[in-house]
């Protein structure tokens, strides 16, 4: 069995927990103390015929936007950075978090999720921003919606494949 540790990073209230909830039906313990700063859940998927356990570490938002909790990133084999399409500043935060995380983990697979696609009319993140992420930053980017589930399954699958 292949087991992979995946971290969810992003500014507060961008929808990390909601995305995990949407993807995983069994959240370990919903009222798990936010003090410890992490919620853990697990999902089993088959990728290219390989059975895989994804252990998801959902970091709670801390005081600062870009505060990475280094010890939780230790041993991560992949991560998501999540931004909220309706808050432009969360995208900058996501990029900073990504750089900080890569410092800790070394080069490992990761994706950018721009969440709250259902609120598209209110988005401050533009089409050009997304293109720039994909082309200039070389980031695999998805516009997701934790509410409807849009692109959620697909983004996890993509990351899982990259980690194989």
């Amino acid at each position, binding site marked *: *069995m*292949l*087991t*992979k*540790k995946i971290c969810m990073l992003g500014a*507060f*209230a961008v929808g990390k927990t909601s995305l995990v909830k949407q993807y995983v039906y069994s959240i*370990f*313990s919903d009222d*798990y*103390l*936010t*003090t*410890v*700063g*992490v919620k*853990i*859940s*697990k999902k089993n998927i088959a990728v290219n015929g390989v059975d895989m*356990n994804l*252990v998801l*570490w959902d970091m709670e938002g*801390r*005081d600062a936007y870009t505060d990475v*909790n280094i*010890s*939780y990133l*230790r*041993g*991560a*084999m992949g991560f998501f950075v999540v931004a909220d399409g309706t808050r432009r500043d969360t995208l900058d935060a996501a990029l900073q978090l990504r750089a900080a995380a890569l410092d800790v983990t070394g080069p490992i697979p990761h994706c950018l999720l721009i969440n709250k696609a259902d609120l598209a009319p209110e988005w401050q993140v533009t089409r050009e921003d997304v293109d720039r992420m994909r082309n200039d930053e070389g980031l695999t980017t998805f516009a997701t919606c934790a509410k409807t589930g849009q692109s959620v399954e697909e983004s996890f699958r993509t990351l899982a494949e990259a*980690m194989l």
Partner: protein
Amino acid sequence: MTPSPDPAEPRAPAPEHTGDTSPAEDTRADKEIERLRTLLFHRELLLLEQLRARLDSPDARAGDVGSVLAEALVLSSREDDRLKMAMEPLVDRIVKESLRDNPHEFSESLFPLMGPSIRKSIAESFHAMLESFSKSMETAFSWKGIRWRLESLRTGKPFSEVVLLHTLVYRVDAVYFIHSATGISLASVMNEGTQSGDSDMVSAMLTAIQDFVNDCLADGKKEDLDLLRQGEYTLLVERRPAAYLACVLRGAPPADYRAHMRACLEYLVMEYAGQLANFKGDTGPFAASRPRLEKLLGSRFVDEDKPLPVWIKLLVAALIAACPGAAGYVFYRHRENAARAAEDAERRRSFRADMLAAVDLLRREPGLLVIHAAEQPAGDTPSSTASAASPGNSGQNRDTPQEGATGEAASPAAPTAAASLSDHTGQGPAAPPEQASAKASLDAGTPWKVVCLKDRLARTPEEVLREHGKDASLFSFTLIPYVSYEPDMVSKRVDLSIQPPENVSMRFDDGIIYLSGTAPMHWTLEARRKALTLPGVKDVDIRGLSDPRSARLAAMIQEVQGASVEFPLGKDVPVPEDMPKLTHLVDTLAAVQRLAAEMGMAVSLTIYGHADAVGSVARNYDISQARAKVIAAMLYARGSGMPLALYGLGADYARKSEGPDQSSRRIELRVHLSPSVVPELDFINH
């Protein structure tokens, strides 16, 4: 609703008075209005007054806020996350600060979070076991069985669980083998062979909690969690940098359980060193570790009661089945008993845990080797404890005179041993309060018998326990003398035997004693001799030691050996200008001899006489020999008695190959030291 039919409508009579205009009537009207106002708004005025008073008093305001705070919080949190976001950093900080102050308390409080998931993951296996247990209890229809059935009735717990609670000594429910960096469960085993799907999350969470605790602790004060306790569950953690083991258990595990965990982990870490270092998430290779993990699973139950005679069973069964009233009576009678039994069981459990912790302290003490530690057999009453304890004390007793006899009365151990002895005797008749408390704790369990091997220099178990605030009277110790090869003990032994002076330091490493500093040579040699006779000492390295006098001695020897006394052609009396040099040389040699003697050495001297190339070979040998003899004669004249060897070397070492040369006509001295007191002097070579 119209105003007029309302009987409370206040304005109804007013129009009658509106025509009056006289001043008297005005004042009267004012008063009327005032009265009316008071009448009408009495309640409101009062309220206003109260409100003002409240606003003026901070206490009252705080009370107000307090009464609605909770509700306000609930309302606010229902609406949005702003309050949560505002409070989070604050709470976060408070928690972290409190954690920094008492990490253990806090980590224990984190465990309950894991409790439910662990419980869930092992619930199934538990269930299966309870069922089988339940059946066995049904067949063993005993007094206990009845009591537990009643307890189950009373508490609403399943019968099987009540049985388990009372009979469980310990049971290891799950063992997790976890990769440290990723927190991924490499392999896990559950009791009764039930595989849990949650082991990944349990191990990730455990890792997260540990990361968290470590993050919160000040730098350099890393304190790992190795034991968490919540209610009946205990989580034991044993770690190496690459991986760790976590065992979930109930009850009190055997004293050596942790040692088993450690051994198992050590084996696994070695066996899988490569896979652990290059772990990429593939847990496949670790499946083979399961049999080893399974060895850590296990349980023990207390023995069951003997079955009751058949007639009692029948009677009780008939009573319970046929007569609800009688059942009620039995229920009532046993209600108290059952509650007390549960309390007792809890007290016994914690007593046992305390005792195990105390024994663990003894195990860690250098020079003590616990070979047996257990509850005393049922026959032993607390009163026999005292007599059982006495062999241990008299063992200590025997030690003390020995120490005196070997001339080590000044050793640091001796006074403490004596003190502990007088402690004992002093306490005997006084019936101190300590004994009363011991008796109270004894209610929770019988005293323990501990058999220890004890090095003569080790502290007594009583001393060790007292230092940790444990009650030694709950144990009876049997001490068997032995010689410990533990480094701590060996170095203590050497220390006591050689008693290094102030400026000598001692280090013990892998059987070798390293001495360094400065010490008189005779001490050094004696110390070395003594140390080599002690158990556990393979060698004594004294290269780091120097005698403060040896530098002076060496300087003088060098001076003597470097000096040259020259002679006129064909003469054996030195040139006049070298005469004072010669006198000084002879004085110095005498000083060398004195100092060396002080340091336990004898001096011998070789005198070489030389000639220049002028003259025949035979003549030159003669004259060079004569020159050496002159020095010898002068030494004898001073009464030195130093052993001498004289050599006339002729012109063999002449500095010029031909012609007369004063610098070639000379004598040379070589000083030799040899041990005079003790045979060993090899350090001189270093």
